[in-house]
């Protein structure tokens, strides 16, 4: 057992957790932040992507202990005063989702891309989303949504 202290979506949290607790488990089961999804649980699908100290990572492949002390942002932390983040708005507007299971990871990953590359090309968007798998949309509308968000962020 160890003490995990994190700042999650701007709120300080401190909880005891077994050392083998994954960050995804910590967020979902200890903090009830179930917006972070677990898809493959083998670090391939990207449904569990969150930001740790400003960079995206797959929370199913990080220990809560090894990000101790960090700032974590999950999909729940994106809205401000009930207003969706421009990336969420763009996904909604351009139908960048169907079943929605991969969407939290897609959105978190895409925001990280725009933090690093303000005007990505189609190829750069597709390349960046290599680690996010969607089985419904065929990606066209996801790419369109990321491009739309790039004009708003």
């Amino acid at each position, binding site marked *: 057992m*160890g003490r995990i202290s994190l700042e999650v979506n701007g709120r300080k949290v401190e909880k005891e957790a*077994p*050392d*083998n607790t*994954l960050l995804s488990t910590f967020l979902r089961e200890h903090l009830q932040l179930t917006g972070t999804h677990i898809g493959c*649980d*083998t*670090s*391939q699908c*990207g449904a569990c*992507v969150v930001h740790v100290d400003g*960079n*995206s*990572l*797959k929370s199913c*492949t*990080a*220990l809560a*202990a*090894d990000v*101790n002390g960090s700032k974590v942002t999950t999909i729940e932390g994106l809205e401000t005063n009930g207003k969706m983040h421009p990336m969420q708005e763009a996904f909604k507007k351009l139908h960048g989702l169907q079943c929605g299971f991969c969407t939290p990871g897609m959105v978190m*990953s895409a925001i*990280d*891309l725009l933090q690093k590359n303000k005007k990505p090309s189609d190829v750069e968007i597709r390349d*960046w989303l*290599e*680690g*996010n798998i969607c089985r419904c949309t065929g990606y066209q509308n996801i790419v369109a949504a990321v491009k739309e968000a790039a004009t708003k962020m």
Partner: protein
Amino acid sequence: MKDFNYHSAKDSKEASKLASSSSAFLAGGMTTIPSMKLGLATYKDLIDIKNIKKLSGIKVSGKSVTIGAATKHVEVSNSKDVKKAIPSLSSLAEGIGDPQVRNRGTIGGSIANNDPSADYPSACIALNAIIHTNERKIEANKFFKGMFETALKKGELIEAIEFQIPEKSSYQKHPNPASRYAIVGVYVAKHKGDVNVAVTGAKSCVYNDKEMSKALSGNFSSSSIDGMDLDSSEMNSDMHASADFRASLVVTQAKKAVDAC
């Protein structure tokens, strides 16, 4: 995943002191954590080395580029110094996995794991790397021993990897489209006097292809290896590629690498 004790080491000394026959060092965890989740590996103790400051960073001197073991792939791919000194090393790092893997995975972790399809081992062989550990210096061609096997002893920790700057070099990978691991990757580096042709993904362990090295050292042109018929008897054969296809890919990727130099 079975439970274990997590430790965060302050320095190499503490890390190796904590090590035992049932421990592992944890850097990015991109292989260690999935292996543990799948039950392929179990440890009593995980010793996190990410917070050891000395293990991160990139230094360039006139003849070499030295990269700390806990330096992440994204740091290598973004480094202006690496881009200038050995551009092929920077693009190799940019082609590993996906952005989230590159945000976490480390060069030392990749080398210590020695996956037969990993990218970095080929860079070590091609660029005559010296692996600095907390105990000694090991030449790359004596470091990679076999599938997932290295010369590292229990508790021995990689601290940095020193790459020799070549005259010209290129890494060409035919990636598995799902995992981005190399089905075959070839790293060609022309040094003063000789040429290394390091191959990953083709056999159970990275190797320097002597036949192509010799041909290219004589005449550094893709025509000197064109149509070369490599022995495929020791090459991997799986659902992604047969041994014969891999043998052919090695030559194709090597030619591409020479042309890109």
